[in-house]
């Protein structure tokens, strides 16, 4: 896809999503803002895992880094008398930088590690970051950093509710993050990432520096996770260690796999599931004739179980995830249309299955 088309698609998608906010009630707009925040993280994660082949169990920590970067910068700017859009933009950039630097450090270590060792390193990070944040006084411990109230800007105050405004901001940041990732995916960098993922030695022999590509993938993914953290902080008006636990990291990864590894559409579907599944499960359990104590207990754990079951079913039935299943369905529909259409005069070349031929070898070879 050309860069121009990607940019136009990003802009078109943002306009459509903003239009959608007019159809939703405030709570749904709040949920949409959460989807946008998680989308920043899942989109970055799907590029990291699906395109560059590096596993991260620590994306919640990168989101936390972004969230704290956003909140602290915003507080500092408020004290300095800066407000409005400049404050938001500066705090968002700070969130991206903090998460990006953390991602750079992770990437530098990750370039020397593979598979379970890299997963172990990122898991350590997601355990350590909330623990450190809870014990550092400047980050205000378990309570976290509370943001001052960010209302709807003056001219829009009479037109839209706070939740709709928050959804607009969240969608704009997510559109920037996802469009940026789409440009990376479709460009030379994305091609290099996929080459390194498939065969590092062959990629190196073709002139690619695998370590550099892997570090770059980590930085790009971390920056977007940091943006997700910033958006989440903006929407919830606070950041605390309890919001960025190991389970969030695992859920982000599961969302990416369920959505379809390496697919930005899959990342979006995964982000929607992350937000809607607990709500859907809660709605269903509320309808069941269960004691309130039981309902309360299962409300917290049942979504995880459903997510896990969904993962198992999808891996078994559609390894490409939801996005892969959609693509396959589209391909089947196209094939059916071709079958019903008049046959072409010349048949296109049809590849045969790879079958190494017997070589004319000499007796000297083993």
């Amino acid at each position, binding site marked *: 896809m050309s860069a121009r088309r990607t940019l136009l698609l990003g802009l078109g998608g943002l306009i459509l999503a903003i239009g959608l906010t007019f159809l939703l009630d405030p709570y749904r707009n709040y949920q949409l803002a959460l989807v946008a925040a998680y989308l920043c993280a899942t989109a970055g994660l799907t590029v990291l895992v699906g395109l560059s082949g590096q596993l991260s169990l620590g994306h919640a920590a990168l989101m936390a880094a972004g969230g704290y970067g956003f909140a602290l910068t915003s507080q500092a700017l408020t004290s300095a008398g800066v407000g409005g859009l400049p404050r938001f933009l500066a705090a968002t950039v700070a969130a991206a930088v903090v998460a990006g630097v953390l991602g750079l450090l992770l990437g530098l270590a990750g370039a020397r590690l593979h598979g379970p060792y890299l997963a172990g390193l990122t898991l350590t990070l997601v355990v350590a970051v909330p623990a450190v944040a809870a014990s550092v006084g400047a980050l205000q411990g378990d309570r976290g950093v509370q943001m001052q109230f960010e209302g709807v800007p003056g001219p829009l105050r009479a037109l839209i509710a706070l939740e709709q405004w928050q959804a607009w901001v969240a969608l704009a940041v997510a559109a920037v993050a996802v469009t940026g990732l789409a440009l990376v995916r479709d460009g*030379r960098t994305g091609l290099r990432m996929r080459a390194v993922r*498939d065969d590092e030695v062959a990629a190196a*022999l073709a002139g690619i520096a695998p370590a550099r590509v892997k570090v770059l993938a980590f930085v790009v993914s971390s920056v977007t996770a940091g943006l997700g953290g910033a958006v989440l902080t903006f929407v919830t008006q606070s950041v605390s260690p309890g919001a960025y636990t190991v389970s969030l990291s695992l859920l982000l990864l599961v969302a990416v796999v369920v959505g379809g590894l390496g697919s930005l559409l899959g990342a979006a579907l995964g982000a929607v599931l992350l937000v809607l599944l607990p709500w859907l499960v809660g709605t269903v359990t509320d309808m069941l004739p269960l004691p309130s104590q039981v309902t309360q207990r299962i409300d917290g754990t049942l979504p995880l179980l459903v997510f896990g079951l969904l993962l198992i079913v999808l891996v078994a039935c559609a390894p490409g995830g939801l996005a892969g299943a959609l693509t396959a369905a589209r391909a089947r529909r196209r094939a059916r249309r071709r079958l019903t259409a008049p046959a072409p005069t010349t048949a296109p070349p049809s*590849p045969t299955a*790879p079958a190494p031929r017997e070589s004319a070898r000499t007796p000297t070879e083993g």
Partner: protein
Amino acid sequence: MPEREAPAGAGAMRLQVRGLTVRFGGLAALTDVDLDVAESQVVGLIGPNGAGKTTVFNAVSGLVRTAAGTITVAGRPAPRAPQGLARAGVARTLQGLGLFPGLSVRENVEVGVLGASDPAARALEALDDLGIADRAALPVGALPYPEQKKVALARALVADPRLLLLDEPAGGLGAADIAELDAVVRRVAATGCAVLLVEHHVDFVMSLCDRVVVLDFGRVIADGTPDAVRRDPAVTAAYLGIEVTAS
């Protein structure tokens, strides 16, 4: 070690290996190997299994550490890391093809393009040269094996190398594909590119190469024209396991 002269009639030296020694722990994989490949020359590196042929390629490519010796590419020390190889004008194919299964045929070749303004067009051009441009959009795994080998070759050629290292290019190919490969290698060499190939297919090597170097147990046991190498009793002994008696 006495200074070795370049082969007679050779142009500018593209690859010069002197006293190359590679050890894997206590095992000497290569011992004191000398090798020259000049521009427009096609040199075959042959030997029984385990003789050290691919280790020579790996040493030149920076994939294994050398214990001793020098490797120069176009008069300069060979890059220490494999990613520097392409910029030094060296391209290499791998015995296991080294294709990227998640990429299309065109993308597999595009990965090898260096500095072109339109890498996709350059990749298509390279595929067209080998007669498989119509396969460009397919996943590389969907191609039959001989065409996969062409994709690997196209990726090596798309960077316009001055030194081409081919690791078993004829392996797994039938007679017609080998004849086609022969023509491609001759065409590439005619542009001034030096070609060093490791190959088990002795007839292919003997008909194509200007010089043949024979390795056995990590040492060079013969280096000369195909005819001279074919007549060399040490080569026969290495291949057939016959001891050469002193005459």
